[in-house]
């Protein structure tokens, strides 16, 4: 009986070791190829406008002040605990963000932060400067659009 049990234990240990082994190796393979492949997969549109639900260019010419007001309310509630306009906080300052990024890029960053931080080279590089990762605050597309209007107003 004893030898039988030790054989079985051995079998379990070996089986587990091998299964875990397999899982790990396939994971790390994926990790090492991820960045290379996905950088190449980004289209020119995605490089400029980010990856996510916003797949068309958005232009802001004249600020819609009503929309910007709603944007400020949403920003304070969903973004303001981590982003200030004028200084580095949990995340980067956003007072001039619309001078550096397109509206679609910022919207995709709000609506799809997980994928942006994983795949977009610009988001990845900014993200690497901050210890806390940006979270998804579940904004609707309309709310994200309003936030962008507010940030555009603040970037003027």
């Amino acid at each position: 009986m004893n030898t039988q049990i030790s054989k079985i234990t051995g079998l379990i240990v070996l089986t587990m070791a091998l299964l875990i082994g397999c899982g790990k190796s396939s994971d790390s393979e994926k990790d090492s190829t991820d960045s290379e492949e996905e950088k190449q997969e980004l289209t020119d549109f995605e490089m400029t406008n980010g990856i996510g639900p916003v797949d068309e260019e958005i232009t802001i010419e004249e600020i819609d002040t009503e929309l910007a007001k709603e944007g400020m309310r949403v920003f304070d509630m969903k973004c303001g605990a981590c982003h200030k306009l004028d200084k580095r906080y949990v995340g980067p300052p956003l007072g001039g963000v619309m001078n550096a990024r397109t509206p679609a890029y910022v919207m995709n960053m709000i609506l799809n932060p997980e994928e942006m931080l994983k795949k977009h080279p610009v988001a990845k590089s900014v993200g690497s400067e901050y210890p806390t990762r940006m979270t998804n605050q579940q904004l609707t597309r309309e709310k994200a659009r309003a936030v962008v209007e507010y940030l555009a107003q603040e970037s003027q």
Partner: protein
Amino acid sequence: MNKLLKKSLLWPLAAVAAIGFLSVGCSSNGEFGSSSDAAEKVYVAPGEHDEFYGFFSGGYNGQLGVYGLPSGRHIYTIPVFSQTPTNGYGYSEETKSMLQTTDGFVPWGDAHHPELSQTDGETDGRWVFMNENNTPRVARVGLDEFKTQEIIEIPNSAGNHASSFVTPNTEYVSAATRFSIPMDEKNMENMDVSIDSYKENFKGTISFIKVSDKGKMNIDFQIMMPGFNYDLSHAGKGPSHGWSFFTSYNSEEANTMLEINASRNDKDYIAAINWEKAAEYAKQGKGKMMPGKHYRNYIDHEEGGVAKSEVIEKVRVLDPRKLEGIVYFLPTPKSPHGVDVDPTGQYIAAGGKLSTVIPVHSFAKMEEAIENKDFEGKEQGIPVLNYDSILHGEVENPGLGPLHTEFDGKGYAYTTAFISSEIVKWDIETAEVVDRIDVYYSPGHLMIPGGDSQNPDGKYLVALNKITKDRYLPTGPEMFHSAQLIDISGDKMKLLLDFPTEGEPHYAQAITADKVKERQKRFYEIDDNNHPRATKSEKEARVERDGNEVHVYMTTIRSHFAPDNIEGIKVGDEVYFHVTNLEQDWDVPHGFAVKGANTSELLIMPGETLTLKWEPKKPGVVPFYCTDFCSALHQEMQGYVRVSPENSDTPISYGTGE
């Protein structure tokens, strides 16, 4: 060995099954409980979901345990009748009113029978109701949040055991007294009388709680009953829709040494209640509005998530001696415990603890006997039907101490036998035993998913055993109760799995995961947070003094509090930390604990506001921190409050990151 290894890699499941098989074979119990494919049948691969949610009452822990089936994995515990340190339920300012009663704040409860809401006689996944035995209460748990949303107290009752069973469309939840008490018939008041005046003064009540579409509970009527002990219940369905059945024991009306004195009569009764007729009487204003002070406590997220209590002074009481046709007694052998109605609604099975048979009454025969006034007499003014006239059959040789029965929807019933530690399967039509299986040990209730509804999922059965002894590693004099999963898909029952359960599950119910899973709330939208002291942005975070009350309006997000430095608090202050979690991400609560608090921590769900009351007793600087490991920088999620002596003039000041 190599050959074996290769095989096991190709079929890991088979290997697990084989290991399960062999290790069971070696168990010291000697019994060969499990079949070789048992492991495969209960195996849920990592990342996969169970087929069923099982809801197990926690008995004397007052909670509701959630287990996955068939794996037996414990997935959650929902706080219901007891204060819970895990998330501050019953401690926080928002939830403590949930435990308010006419006896004041009652921080503990004895939870017995969870019951899933039903639509058209089928479990629908909206709510689970559960009774509290000691301080008579019924709770409603919302399966969108897995939170207790309402608790209603049952007045004119002592020991709310025969509860909380639902009618086929959740029209009503029923509740009946386990202990009768002396009740003045004029004002329903408990009386200061000699205990041995039992026969003269003691009464019971059966209550019907109406449930609205949104779940709101109110006691529509109570029925005044003879002073027996009412034990369990189930509602009729199909042809018996409109009726509910309640077991009673102690028809001897003994008040001492019940184990002898309440076992004298050959038969006690099942009370058949025509609730549809009673509801009509109630609607017509029949019966009497009587004193019946009770609390209704509820918590509604749309209304701010702060529990509210209302006190209701009166309740309608119906007297079955005056209102004809609402109560009949069905004589039933020897202190019946469970009463269970089969899925077709035609048969009513009782578990007579001390009986040598399981009596099965026929609803059609019962109706006929009522029609023909085929009574063997009256008991305190209530007609008693003739046993032989209403009997469908008696199941012979059902094991010792039959207690509870559930159904598989394929014509079979399954009854627990407590004393002989077995489950007995019998054919409902022929009343003949067709199979039996040993369980370990002494089963109370048993459960089949949907097993008391019109549409059971007759795949698994769970035996809820009362005695565990040698089933797991010993843990001192007490061990967790043992549940056992049994495969009932074939002709022969097969034992698949043992799993320990918390507290003492009495009854349990289960539902297919699909009916529940898709309706889960993942976070509360912060924009819709209507809490009167919510802080919806870090900008609004602040500290306000109002006399010796200090209100801290605090926000959390990974991984900081705002404010995280607070000064100007003084010894003797009542400090309220109103903490709003600004996260909007699934499963990212933050915790809040402050040194010296006399309650528990808070666990604040994304988008939610909760309040901890703190009364600092000593000057100094006191840390607070997040108790929930929320991010890589969780350990940085902390802050300080400076507490100055009572007569100091340190001004209120606060900030984060300055």
